[in-house]
């Protein structure tokens, strides 16, 4: 059997081409894909596409609800499967304790541009190392239809457990903000909440439930308010109504005199990510003024950008809907979610379940 030079070359070229074709996409995909475990606001193409185009990467987004669900997904994944995590700010210490978040260089993040009240160093850092950065925040307060209720009434939280709007109220179905907001309503500090405070809070929650029409999740609460099923959503806020401001200018939100609850979401890089640089780049984009404005007005829900410089990228209409000018006042008059240990957390969920079963 003879072998021609041409035949040998062709075969080698074929093999080389095949190898190149096989390896090239693999190499490209190893460099150019980022896997992020996120809340629904990050799935808006208007937010992610500019980053993808600028960096020639594909960001694979997996949406989840509730930290429990995220932890379950992470536990079922292999180290390195995920690059970026968006998580409830109060749960960042939990993620740090689980050793899933990697350290991020503080000097590469615009930490000084964040509203000081939402930096939350106590939860996002440990031993002086930054593990997450606050990217968005908002309030659990009162959303309402200003054509159907007296806006002046909404300045006093006690109206939601009085009979005045009986049958016209929806409660946001999430125990943590509802317990926290009720605590604020009766003059307790969320940071100081103890198990002993829960019976009083439970009593108030029961009163609230008696006058409420329903307790519902985000979509159902929003639908109920938008369709006139209810006129007030307790636990709502800019995240519930600001996004609808263009089509439903009758919907509004406020922070009553007793104050409100402030929530925040954070973003971090997985410790085991094999694309640390790209993941950090994504975090930097999200917390940049431009990324922040896009995230704040994401189609899933609107809320406040954590970066105070994002205002430069928001339109006047967006600023009005977010009550941008009132932030200094609102930030002062709002408290963080109760940071509870496991027993307190279980007890809070129990009283909320009891409330729903009333």
């Amino acid at each position: 059997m003879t072998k021609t030079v041409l035949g040998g070359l062709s075969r080698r070229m074929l093999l080389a081409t095949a190898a190149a074709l096989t390896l090239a996409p693999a190499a490209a995909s190893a460099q150019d894909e980022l896997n992020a475990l996120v809340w629904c606001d990050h799935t808006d193409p208007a937010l992610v596409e500019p980053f993808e185009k600028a960096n020639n990467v594909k960001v694979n987004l997996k949406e989840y609800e509730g930290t429990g669900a995220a932890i379950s997904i992470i536990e079922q994944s292999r180290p390195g499967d995920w690059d970026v995590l968006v998580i409830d700010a109060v749960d960042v210490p939990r993620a740090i304790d689980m050793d899933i978040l990697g350290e991020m260089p503080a000097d590469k993040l615009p930490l000084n541009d964040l509203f000081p009240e939402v930096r939350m160093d106590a939860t996002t850092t440990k031993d002086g190392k930054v593990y997450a950065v606050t990217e968005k925040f908002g309030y659990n307060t009162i959303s309402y239809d200003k054509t159907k209720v007296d806006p002046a009434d909404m300045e006093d939280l006690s109206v939601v457990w009085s009979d005045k709007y009986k049958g016209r109220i929806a409660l946001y179905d999430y125990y943590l903000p509802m317990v926290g907001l009720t605590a604020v309503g009766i003059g307790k500090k969320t940071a100081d909440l103890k198990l002993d405070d829960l019976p009083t809070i439970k009593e108030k929650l029961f009163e609230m439930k008696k006058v409420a029409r329903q307790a519902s999740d985000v979509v159902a609460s929003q639908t109920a308010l938008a369709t006139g099923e209810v006129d007030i959503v307790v636990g709502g806020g800019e995240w519930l109504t600001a996004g609808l401001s263009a089509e439903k200018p009758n919907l509004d939100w406020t922070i009553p005199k007793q104050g409100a609850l402030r929530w925040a979401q954070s973003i971090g890089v997985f410790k085991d990510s094999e694309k640390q640089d790209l993941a950090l780049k994504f975090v930097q984009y999200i917390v940049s003024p431009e990324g922040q404005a896009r995230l704040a007005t994401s189609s899933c829900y609107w809320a406040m950008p954590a970066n105070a410089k994002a205002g430069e990228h928001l339109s006047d209409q967006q600023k009005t809907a977010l009550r941008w000018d009132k932030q200094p006042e609102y930030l002062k008059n709002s408290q963080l979610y109760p940071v509870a240990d496991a027993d307190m957390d279980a007890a809070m969920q129990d009283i909320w379940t009891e409330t729903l079963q009333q």
Partner: protein
Amino acid sequence: MAATALERMERRKAWAFALPALLWTGFFFIVPFAYMAAISFWTRQGREIVATWTLDNYIAFFGKAHFFKGLVVSLEITATVTVISILLAYPLAWIIAERVPKKWQRFALIMAILPFWTSYVVRSYSWLLVLSKGGVVNQALLWLGVIAEPLELSANRTGTVIGFVHFFVMLLTLTIYANLIQLSPNYRRAAADLGANAFQTFWFVVLPLTLPGIMVGAFLTFVLCIGDYITPQILGGNNELVLPQVIMLQLGRRADFPMAAALSLVLMVVVTLAYIACARWLKMERT
């Protein structure tokens, strides 16, 4: 001896054929189920799940009223839905089997099961819009002057039951129809010959003979209804929680898998008891 060898070969062949199904059931049902059962005896201590054997979760289920009420509410809603669905599905199945011309029966059945073709979530949200204060039903009744104020048809048990009944009437219609068309007309002729009127024929002859179809449909309704989370979540307004909703609450933020597993096992026991009752009844019917 040759016959025994043949029997052994047949038996081996039967096992070989059954093996894929057995493996499938083993890996995708028995193993996960056993794992879930084991987890239900573990506990969540602090942020950790501890693999220690305890009855704490079951004690909590019977000890905490809001957990146990979840089961009671589930049973009440399931019983209501099953009874109403049977009462509506039977006449519908009977009309399709007895009154609709043979050539149109297939079309009638397709029409009956058409709602199955849409997503369950979409269907539930559609019902929310239909039953809401400004929805079609209330607006029509208000326009006709039948009511002065909108009826509360959603965000309560009524809404949940309506959503469920819409779905399960279709299911029961199929099982009852399948039973009805198998009945020989000779039964009714014989009853008429013996002097039975139409009602007596139905009550003493047709109805007992279609009870298996009703029972099978009722069992399926029971199983699917008691385990459903979506319809009560969307249409019930969280004014009372069914057991699946209580289970989901354990998972949401807290990831209390042991408690959720214990509650799921309770639900499974209830379904198993319903199955045993149904199977025994059907067996008794046959003997």
